[in-house]
């Protein structure tokens, strides 16, 4: 059986810690890739899922990966977590196809609510019709 995967890309394990309980409860495969290329590989091999991406200082590489991800895996859902509101960045993120941009405050309840709702689409079946990835 293929479990829905929840990928968390960040530098400090804070968000993964917040989502660990939820992932355990719902039988999601929580993965914490350390490299951006690994994110693409996991979507390639593990099927669709949700990526929670916490923007760090390496903005250009992270957003370039996001663009590539949305191009190659249009079904992959991404929640972008930003530490402060930058209009240009937020707008760019929406254009790159993220499902939601989470701005502060990053409370556990808010994060869990969004992730839980978005993960629902991957629960019953891993593809729309059984053909493909």
């Amino acid at each position: 059986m293929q479990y829905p995967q929840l990928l968390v890309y960040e530098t400090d394990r804070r968000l993964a810690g917040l989502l660990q309980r939820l992932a355990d409860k719902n039988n999601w495969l929580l993965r914490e890739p350390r490299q951006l290329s690994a994110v693409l590989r996991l979507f390639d091999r593990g099927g669709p899922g949700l990526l929670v991406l916490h923007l760090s200082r390496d903005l250009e590489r992270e957003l370039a990966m996001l663009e590539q991800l949305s191009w190659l895996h249009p079904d992959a859902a991404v929640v972008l977590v930003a530490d402060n509101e930058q209009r240009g960045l937020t707008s760019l993120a929406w254009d790159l196809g993220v499902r939601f941009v989470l701005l502060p405050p990053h409370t556990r309840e808010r994060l869990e609510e969004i992730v839980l709702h978005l993960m629902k689409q991957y629960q019953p079946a891993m593809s729309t019709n059984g053909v493909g990835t």
Partner: protein
Amino acid sequence: MNEEDAKGAPGQQGPDAPRFPRRLAKDFRWQAFFERCAEPVFVLDRRRRLLFVNRAWEMLTGMAKDEAHVLVCRRPRPVSADDPIEEILAHALTPPSEVLRGASGHVRRLLPAPKSVVGASRWWEIEFLPLLQEGEQGGYLIVGRIRPVPAVELIRDHPLSEKLVNLRQRRIERFGMDAWASSLPAMRRLGEQIRLASQVTTPVLIVGEVGSGKQTLARTIHYLSPRRDGACAVLDCQHLPPTVISHLLFGLDRREAGPTGREGLAAVYLREPAFLPRDVQLLLCERIMGGRDARAPEGATGPRIFAGSVMPPAQAVRSGRLLDELACALSALVLEVPPLRERLADLPSLVERLLPRACFGRDTRVTNLRADAWALLRAYSWPGNLRELYNVLRSACAHASGEQICAADLPAELCRAVQREQMAPRTTDKTLPLEQLLEEAERRLIQLALQRARGHKAQKAQAARLLGIPRARLWRRMLALGIADPEQEAGGPAGEDAREE
């Protein structure tokens, strides 16, 4: 001659106007016509070489007329700041594919060489107008007009780095009209609707099956529209909490205050708005109605609303999910995306377009499909539409060993589905024997009536009463249809009762 004169001039030719390109090629009076035009204008010949540039073009680019004549504008690949100025200009002036097919079009291009080319302005908006001769396929001349965009609204407050601006531009260029180019009447009509929708600001409702490209269509319209500098957000009404959506759309949040992140939004695509709660639907309806006020100042109208739905709006209203008012507000412009099974003629061009993406990052580069694989793709009904086609190609590229995909590389599920469809008789080929169907229905009704009358002293008489026909007719029909008499089988009118006793 200013721009207004230039615009008015073709209209002064009266009945000769349709023959304008032919005359233009002969006597070259058009050079003087464009030369004094205030805006940078250029003309490409059929091989996309620069045939003419005006003085404004020279001033904008910093390139002399004589140097410009060597440029061949056939470079769709983006350029970088390291490329020579000729390459950068060749890319900027390359017409999009729909222009080569004879339609007018406009693009926005980012010029990565800032100093020698455009000074402070790095974005160009270029309008292309092909001048066609009768029976001409590729276009005779292409007239282009450049409008430098002084500043990109998106980056005014919080400047993005050049790499990120280029990233956005690359993303925008993925949503061109090429994806919707087709010779099919329904798709050509859709193409015209896309152009129309990009010129207006009304809400657009896009109806189509799952995976047919509704979201791509919404982005295409937005990035063709004058508001393309602002972002386009996609909100999944089915899978996002309603509070989050209302927070983003209206700045409402019942529990927490905080930034909404909606300031830079110029368009919002709502996926399946019927899943929104009724109060949010009402608020959305009010906002759309308020946004239609033409007297409202620019910027006060909020983001333009696109909505995508699998179900036609009338059906969604009947099902009770979508408010009638919201359906009306969204239906100002309804675009229907045909399912893939109705545009199988486009399959080769779609596959050609999707293949480089599907085999991206693979060791082997797949360039085409073998005949057996094509046959399978054409025979399949594609319930998942374009999304499924992409997934199938991606899976096939992973299995392909050479440059071509063969039938064995395609997913087994697809092959089985095609076999099932081919084995089952097609509905169109099946005969419809009315007599047999009526007899079958009659037999079943009589058997049902006899079953209900079971235990009654006069079972057949009771069954005839239930059916509303005379007893003699029931008897005749039972004989004709070969239905056994239950009274005789039971040994008399009250046989069963007697047997039970």
